[in-house]
């Protein structure tokens, strides 16, 4: 073994002493030679250099001995060299990490322990043991860096981790965990504290998942919401696994948490975007888009084209468009091509023929594509406007029809601004289309409404329609009354957009109506006078004649004259009666009641006139319960016919009355047949009998309204009356009236 102590010049006492001591050392242990141990004198000159040093620093003993150590190693001290020396002198030792540079220039870190040797109070040497900790330091640095990276990575990925000591209920969490949960970092969390951070509605579910993971050894993977103190709500994805002891006891639960709020939002946005893209793709495929090359051969054909034209892709591709569609151009094809060539685009309406032969009108937009300034293809977007064209045509026709109408038709906006003015309106009001369009209709026509305009608009909103009489002023200042019909068109929000007004001039009609009303009132007044005042006078005459009639001294001639006068008075009263009945039937809405035909007939029989000159026999078998619906005057029907039969007989007469039930179109009717053996009615007179103010060829008093009243009353009750010969073909044998009336249960 070589001596490990070298001699050096100077510092003799120390040298000697060190030599003495370390000479002993060198003899001690061979193994020491392998250790990174060096001895330096108080001037830091190396006096002992081992093989271990050689291996560590690269210097041979020859190169190292007598070298000042901190010069040789280019030592970096953690504190000043003076401080190290001071520590050695005061404490006798120092330890710390030094950075040395080896022979080959590498920097190494050593854990240096230095001990000062003294002899007789003199510092004689310093023993340095320098353990190479370079790799350890590198590992430490790497670890530190790795940890920093982990923190950064967790921050970037919003991924935190946790480790839960199940025995002690301590959850150690990473920084990112605390950041995600917006909690102040602390040593650990308890499970209770963790649960408190969760959304109330998710706690039970998370608890259940953790229980399942621990006890059933199921994977823990769950999404839950947390409600951080900032009031937000965040979505967390958590995963974890449980570690068990050898005996199978759960010990520790490891896991991660990741804030997926943004990710979930992004996922959702992405899904929506994807859906939109798919929709757009579908729309594009449905669109009537095609591409043709410069020879007009189709090179792109969509599903929309298939639907529009009926040709499948395989039939369309390669075909020349204008041949396939038998295109009708609004201008020449050459002009279309020229426009494409010059401007790069063309648009217009084309008429195409679909596969099944029907005509399709399209609004065509064509764009020329160029590659390196050379035209290569034409994109055509052909929107089917066939229905629109048809609607336009229909509208055009309707507008023409509206213009043909004599009614004053115009269209106005809600505020009254006129947008359309028909020829009829021009005629009605006197203003031309040019004079009215853009003007406000209310002011122009000085409209006076029968009700507040607010109410009219409310009705328009509700039913889209209003009708009423409006007073308007024409261009020449004339006041006109129009029957106005309004139809409103509402917008998407339900507001009135436009109103079409159709106005019919009823000024003349209103004047006539007023005159008629006045005439009717006058007629009613006259009738009232007749009914009351004349009958009052008739009453005076009748009563006086009755008084005279009782005079037994009257001659036959006087009595005849008296009878004639009485009949005249009664006839006069009868005329007034009939006129009043006609008035009631035709002008008054008489109430309908249930009436018993049998009661009416029996009443008429009782009240029937009993002429002194001849006998009257009435045959009738009562039939109860034949109810009809009729007015209070209904009895007049039967009385009138019976009385006519008696009055017109002129000789003994038999009247047969029969009441039967019959069915007509499944409905029950009652039929009353009144047949007399009187002089009869010739065929040519029969149709005229029921006519108003028509008289038959009779010998009785000339009132002539009775059968008209009969017919009116029967028809009001929903029935009819006919007349025929009692003996068919021989009118001289008498007449039969047949009155048919619907039974009350079937009456409408």
């Amino acid at each position: 073994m070589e001596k490990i102590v070298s001699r050096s010049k100077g510092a003799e006492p120390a040298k000697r002493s060190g030599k003495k001591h370390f000479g002993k050392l060198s003899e001690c242990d061979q193994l020491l030679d392998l250790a990174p141990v060096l001895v330096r004198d108080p001037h830091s000159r190396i006096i002992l250099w081992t093989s271990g040093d050689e291996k560590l620093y690269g210097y041979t003993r020859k190169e190292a001995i007598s070298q000042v150590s901190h010069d040789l190693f280019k030592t970096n001290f953690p504190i000043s060299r003076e401080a190290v020396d001071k520590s050695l002198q005061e404490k006798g030792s120092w330890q710390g990490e030094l950075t040395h540079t080896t022979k080959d220039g590498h920097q190494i870190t050593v854990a240096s322990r230095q001990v000062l040797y003294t002899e007789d109070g003199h510092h004689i040497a310093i023993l340095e043991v320098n353990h190479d900790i370079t790799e350890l330091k590198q590992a430490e640095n790497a670890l530190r860096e790795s940890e920093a990276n982990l923190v950064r990575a967790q921050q970037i990925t919003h991924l935190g981790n946790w480790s839960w000591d199940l025995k002690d209920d301590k959850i150690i969490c990473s920084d990112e965990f605390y950041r995600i949960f917006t909690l102040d970092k602390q040593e650990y969390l308890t499970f209770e504290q963790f649960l408190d951070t969760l959304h109330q509605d998710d706690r039970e579910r998370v608890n259940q998942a953790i229980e399942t993971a621990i006890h059933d050894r199921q994977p823990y993977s769950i999404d839950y919401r947390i409600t951080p103190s900032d009031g937000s709500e965040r979505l967390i994805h958590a995963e974890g696994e449980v570690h068990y002891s050898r005996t199978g006891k759960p010990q520790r639960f490891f896991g991660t948490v990741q804030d997926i709020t943004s990710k979930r939002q992004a996922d959702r946005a992405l899904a929506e975007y994807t859906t939109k893209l798919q929709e757009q793709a579908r729309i594009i495929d449905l669109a009537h888009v095609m591409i043709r090359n410069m020879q007009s051969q189709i090179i792109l054909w969509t599903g929309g084209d298939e639907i529009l034209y009926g040709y499948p892709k395989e039939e369309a591709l390669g075909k020349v468009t204008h041949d396939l569609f038998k295109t009708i151009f609004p201008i020449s094809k050459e002009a279309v091509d020229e426009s494409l060539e010059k401007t790069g685009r063309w648009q217009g309406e084309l008429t195409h023929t679909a596969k099944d032969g029907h005509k399709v009108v399209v609004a065509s937009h064509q764009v020329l594509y160029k590659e390196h300034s050379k035209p290569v293809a034409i994109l055509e977007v052909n929107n089917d406007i066939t229905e629109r064209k048809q609607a336009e045509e229909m509208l055009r026709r309707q507008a023409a029809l509206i213009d043909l109408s004599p009614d004053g038709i115009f269209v106005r906006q809600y505020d009254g601004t006129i947008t359309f003015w028909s020829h009829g309106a021009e005629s009605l009001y006197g203003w031309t289309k040019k004079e009215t369009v853009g003007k406000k209709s209310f002011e122009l026509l000085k409209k006076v409404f029968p009700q507040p305009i607010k109410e009219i608009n409310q009705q328009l909103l509700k039913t889209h329609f209003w009708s009423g009489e409006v007073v308007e002023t024409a261009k020449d200042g004339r006041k006109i009354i129009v029957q106005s019909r309004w139809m409103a068109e509402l917008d998407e929000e339900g507001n009135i957009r436009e109103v079409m007004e159709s106005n019919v001039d009823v000024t003349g009609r209103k004047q006539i109506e007023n005159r008629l009303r006045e005439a009717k009132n006058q007629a009613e007044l006259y009738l009232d006078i007749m009914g009351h005042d004349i009958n009052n006078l008739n009453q005076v005459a009748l009563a006086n004649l009755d008084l005279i009639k009782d005079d037994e001294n009257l001659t036959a001639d006087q009595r005849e004259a008296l009878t004639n006068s009485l009949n005249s008075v009664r006839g006069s009263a009868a005329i007034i009666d009939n006129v009043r009945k006609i008035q009631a039937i035709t002008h008054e809405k008489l109430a309908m009641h249930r009436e018993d035909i049998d009661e009416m007939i029996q009443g008429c029989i009782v009240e029937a006139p009993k002429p002194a000159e001849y006998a009257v026999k009435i045959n009738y078998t009562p039939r109860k319960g034949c109810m009809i619906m009729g007015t209070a005057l209904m009895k007049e029907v039967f009385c009138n016919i019976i009385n006519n039969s008696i009055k017109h007989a002129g000789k003994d007469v038999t009247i047969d009355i029969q009441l039967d039930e019959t069915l007509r179109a499944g409905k029950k009717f009652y039929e009353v047949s009144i047949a007399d053996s009187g002089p009869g009615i010739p065929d040519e007179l029969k149709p005229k009998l029921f006519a108003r103010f028509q008289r038959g060829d009779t010998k009785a008093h000339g009132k002539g309204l009775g059968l008209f009243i009969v017919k009116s009353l029967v028809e009001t009750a929903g029935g009819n009356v006919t007349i025929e010969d009692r003996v068919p073909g021989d009118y001289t044998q008498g007449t039969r009236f047949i009155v048919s009336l619907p039974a009350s249960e079937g009456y409408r």
Partner: protein
Amino acid sequence: MTTECPPLCRVGIAIVEDEKDLVKVYEKAFTKKGIQICFIAYDGIEAVKKYIECTPRPHAILMDYRMPIMNGIDAAKEILKIDAEAKIVFLSADISVKDEAMKAGAFIFLKKPAGLKDIIYAVQKAVGKVPAPA
């Protein structure tokens, strides 16, 4: 002042009619038939007033409808308020008021023009002295 009325031994009636010619002929006719005229009134108000004053009261009242001041139906209602047993024979040219008159309590409604025979018969029926058929 009270209206002088004939004794009860004979049938007495009142005539309420604004047409003087008619009143005259009714008077003659009733008198001829032995029917006493209790009073004559020319409008409804007068009729009610005279009915209140008349003692004894008439067995029947021949009542017109259309009269000045108060019409026959209103007069009938007032009279019936005073005496629910009053027998009112309406005789009017206004057939349209027949239902109203009957509803008001009229005994019968005759339409003008009516024969004297019919009028007298109605009055006799109202007072319960219908002669036996001949």
